[in-house]
């Protein structure tokens, strides 16, 4: 896959992609996915996860180390993800994304956030007859911007995610979650995990993400590689309860995250 590079030239890890896409639960899923992929944990038919080696052998990231030590003996699939999602290691990953300016402290959107915009329009209209009203427009717009809130992922973060596609199963988890779908195939199937296991995870929607087909010719000739990053084929099935916006401009490829809802 094309390794996404941030504006600072840093490469995004699969865990970072997971975090930016759907929060700490998804990053925890991604760490677990890499461990399953490498044969470092086994998952039983009933969803018990256990480390294959002692002493966190084989861990390549802090999240993986954390996951391995928690799953030293059989632990339920969802509990492993939850535990990693709420860990201090996860807080450090979040801090790292903040430091990289890929994320920021979000601000909640106020109820009636659109009202200052209406005021601004009214002031503009009134300004044509009585120009003094124009003076109020910047103030109303300032209110509007403030009340509209701020997303957790920065513009740079969204840009970095834009061209990420799931060309391996670990990245499929980062982008769509274990209970999402990639190219019409359940991501859980890629790991031979039954739906009863992956559905242990609480549902978590992806953050809205700009698709690679918007933003003016992002796709072009390379559409075959970015195709799985957006569009209906990559969106989550209705069975997991998630949805995908049908418009080409954005894809809410649903999935699930193991808790840790906040950023």
């Amino acid at each position, binding site marked *: 896959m094309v390794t996404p590079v941030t504006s600072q030239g840093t490469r995004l890890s699969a865990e970072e992609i997971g975090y930016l896409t759907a929060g700490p639960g998804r990053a925890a899923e991604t760490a677990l996915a890499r461990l399953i992929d490498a*044969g470092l944990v*086994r*998952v*039983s*038919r*009933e969803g*018990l996860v*256990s480390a*294959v*080696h*002692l002493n966190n052998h084989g861990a390549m990231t802090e999240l993986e180390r954390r996951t391995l030590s928690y799953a*030293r*003996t*059989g632990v339920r699939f969802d509990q492993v993800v939850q535990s990693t999602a709420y860990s201090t290691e996860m807080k450090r990953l979040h801090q790292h994304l903040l430091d990289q300016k890929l994320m920021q402290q979000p601000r909640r959107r106020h109820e009636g956030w659109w009202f200052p915009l209406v005021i601004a329009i009214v002031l503009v209209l009134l300004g044509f007859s009585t120009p003094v009203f124009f003076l109020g427009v910047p103030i109303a717009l300032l209110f509007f911007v403030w009340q509209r809130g701020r997303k957790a992922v920065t513009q740079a973060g969204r840009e970095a995610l834009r061209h990420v596609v799931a060309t391996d199963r670990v990245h499929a988890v980062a982008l769509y979650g274990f209970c999402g779908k990639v190219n019409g195939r359940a991501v859980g199937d890629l790991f031979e995990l039954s739906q009863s296991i992956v559905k242990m995870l609480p549902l978590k929607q992806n953050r809205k993400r700009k698709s690679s087909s918007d933003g003016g010719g992002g796709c072009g000739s390379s559409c075959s590689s970015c195709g799985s990053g957006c569009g209906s084929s990559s969106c989550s099935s209705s069975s997991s309860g998630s949805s995908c916006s049908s418009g080409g401009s954005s894809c809410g490829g649903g999935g699930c995250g193991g808790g840790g809802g906040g950023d």
Partner: protein
Amino acid sequence: MAGITDLGVGIGWRSEIDLTVERLPGVDFVEVVAENLHSNVHRGHLPESVTLLLERGIPVLPHAVSLSLGGADPVDLSRVEHLGKIAEAVGAPMVSDHVCFVRAGGLDSGHLMPVPRTKDALDVLVANVKLAQENLPVPLALENVAALLEWPDGELSEGQFLAELVERTDCWLLVDVANLYANARNIGTDPGRFLDEIPLERLAYVHVAGGVDHGDVYHDTHAHAVLPEVLGVLDELCSRVTPPGVLLERDDNYPSDTEIASELAAIRAVVDKHRG
């Protein structure tokens, strides 16, 4: 005993490694810990993996850890009934537990405690075993346990004790060669003498397990690799009798599928060596 004369090489089925057990080459039979299965198994509540193994024709033998047959307390017949129900649910040719007690005075020790090897203790054990047998639908095999210390005033060797138990109850023997090795290391049991004294014609099958040395003491952990010395005891046993089955017990720190497969292969190599 009809139906179990050639069990082959097996492994203890545990829910954490269910898929591994299904995938492993050369698993001829499995054992399930009876207490880990729900008592409504007779209504079709067996784990999916166990059902799948049964469909493949792999024998599933229930193994109990809580009957406490060596204890002075009366046998808890509800536990015996549970074991029997599981035996019927999986169509097992036999069930097993240990020559030990796990409860005394209503308290659960959480360990398989060795029985004092006295005539009096044997009388109690024999009575309990007979009661259990009367309430079980299939034959019962009993396993030697690992002891870290010996009760004082033992009147019989471990082999003599088991031989007399078999003679008086007609039970079968499940010989754990790792427990035998542990006793040789920790309390000076002579494995050769043990094997000479027990009635090998009543051998149901054999357990092999891993453990670890802690200084002078060997711990039968079921969470480490099988020591070559334990395979040595298996070798000694196989030189005297062809065991109907040999089963690897692993209860924690499950290694990779490859490592488990190679332990099974090592066991099979010892068994096959004596088959010629």
